[in-house]
């Protein structure tokens, strides 16, 4: 099975992710894949959930915190600015309070609480998480390409969904118990209509959004998750370890892509000693990969002669991944 085939065969897999250890080329693969799909006429959003995002560097265009930005027709890229998101979130909460109670000004103790919320240790990550939920729930694109952060962090991001889910479940349970007593009071007072519990509704709303986004992540019909690896011992071992961890979160694995494969035609050319040794090593580990991952290997992408930045190099990489298009 090749990468192109996967895309042709499963057109419903519209959420694409590349995972793997740091520095193996996930971001460049994300960029190249989005480029390929855009050229195929699909409307694509590639977005980064990584505060050290490199999409700006790859596309050579400052997109940080600017929302979805058009790179070429049909290709949009976005880098989330967590700080900005947090600020917007705080403002949203403030506005809601003002609207709900017709106040002109937020009471001081509330205002200082809202401000202090920015100092919450997990605020930044959660803001990014929430923005992704937003992006996915909002819709509007044919393909969504997640530029995931390095391994551990990606797991952290996935576990975040389950933590929030559990949290919401717990406090929803409390709200529901409260509702019981509300009903009892209503029975005693012979009130027919019971006011809706706004908090319960809000919780259900949040839960629905989170579930929607995390169910996408774990839905094999909708999601393609590719692992990127290289032909090196430590990388292979770590990838196996990571794949097991991802399996725990029910992330459906679509296959593996081997990156940085030295082009074999080089072997016949005059190459320095270091490369000769590398070739030897590569051959050995390609064999290992073949044994361990077998036909789950979707593509071997050659080592580029220079780093992938700018559209021409992205196109070149895309062609290396998907063949000519």
């Amino acid at each position, binding site marked *: 099975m090749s990468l192109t085939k996967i895309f042709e065969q499963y057109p419903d897999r519209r959420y694409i992710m590349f995972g793997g250890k740091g520095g193996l080329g996930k971001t460049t693969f994300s960029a190249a894949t989005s480029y390929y799909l855009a050229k195929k006429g699909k409307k694509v959003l590639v977005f980064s959930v990584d505060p050290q995002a490199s999409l700006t560097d790859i596309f050579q265009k400052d997109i940080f915190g600017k929302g979805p930005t058009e790179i070429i027709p049909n290709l949009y890229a976005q880098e989330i600015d967590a700080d900005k998101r947090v600020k917007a*979130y*705080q403002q949203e*909460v403030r506005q*809601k*309070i003002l609207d*709900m*109670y017709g106040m002109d000004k937020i*009471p001081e*103790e*509330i205002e200082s*609480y*809202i401000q*202090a*919320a920015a100092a*919450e*240790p*997990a*605020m930044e990550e*959660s*803001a990014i*998480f*929430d923005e992704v939920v937003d992006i996915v729930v909002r819709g509007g694109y044919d393909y969504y390409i997640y530029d995931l952060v390095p391994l551990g962090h990606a797991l952290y991001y996935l576990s975040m969904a389950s*933590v*929030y889910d559990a*949290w*919401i479940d717990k*406090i929803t349970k*409390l*709200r529901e*118990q*409260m509702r019981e*007593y*509300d009903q*009892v*009071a209503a029975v*005693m*007072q012979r009130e027919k209509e019971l006011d809706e519990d*706004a*908090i319960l509704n*809000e*919780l259900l709303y*949040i839960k629905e959004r989170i579930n929607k986004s995390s169910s996408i992540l774990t839905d094999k019909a909708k999601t393609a998750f590719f692992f990127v690896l290289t032909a090196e011992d430590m990388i292979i071992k770590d990838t196996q370890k990571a794949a097991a961890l991802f399996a725990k979160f029910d992330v459906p694995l679509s296959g593996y892509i081997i990156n940085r494969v030295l082009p074999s035609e080089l072997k016949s050319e005059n190459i320095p000693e270091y490369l000769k040794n590398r070739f030897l090593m590569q051959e050995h580990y390609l064999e290992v990969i073949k044994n361990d991952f077998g036909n789950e290997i979707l593509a071997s992408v050659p080592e580029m002669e220079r780093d992938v930045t700018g559209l021409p190099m992205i196109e070149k990489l895309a062609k290396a991944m998907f063949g000519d298009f």
Partner: protein
Amino acid sequence: MAEKEKKKGGFFQSVKEFVYGVAAHDSARFALKTRASMEHLFILITMGDMLGVPILPPYYSLRLLPYVVPQISTWKRRMLREKDLTDGLA
């Protein structure tokens, strides 16, 4: 005449409320009391940091803040008021 009718309705309404006060008020009050103390627990576990209880409220608890704004000062009062035996007697 109409006014007299209204007054009569008012009287029956009062009697109804009196009977409610005798029989049902305690039960309804208890249900609401229980509900409210659960609400206080709810605010505590979602926004306890407001009183310096070392809870890290998750990102989404801020979304709930608008709904509890009117209750915050009474909540704080209820959490912090010194109580003794005589408070629970009636």
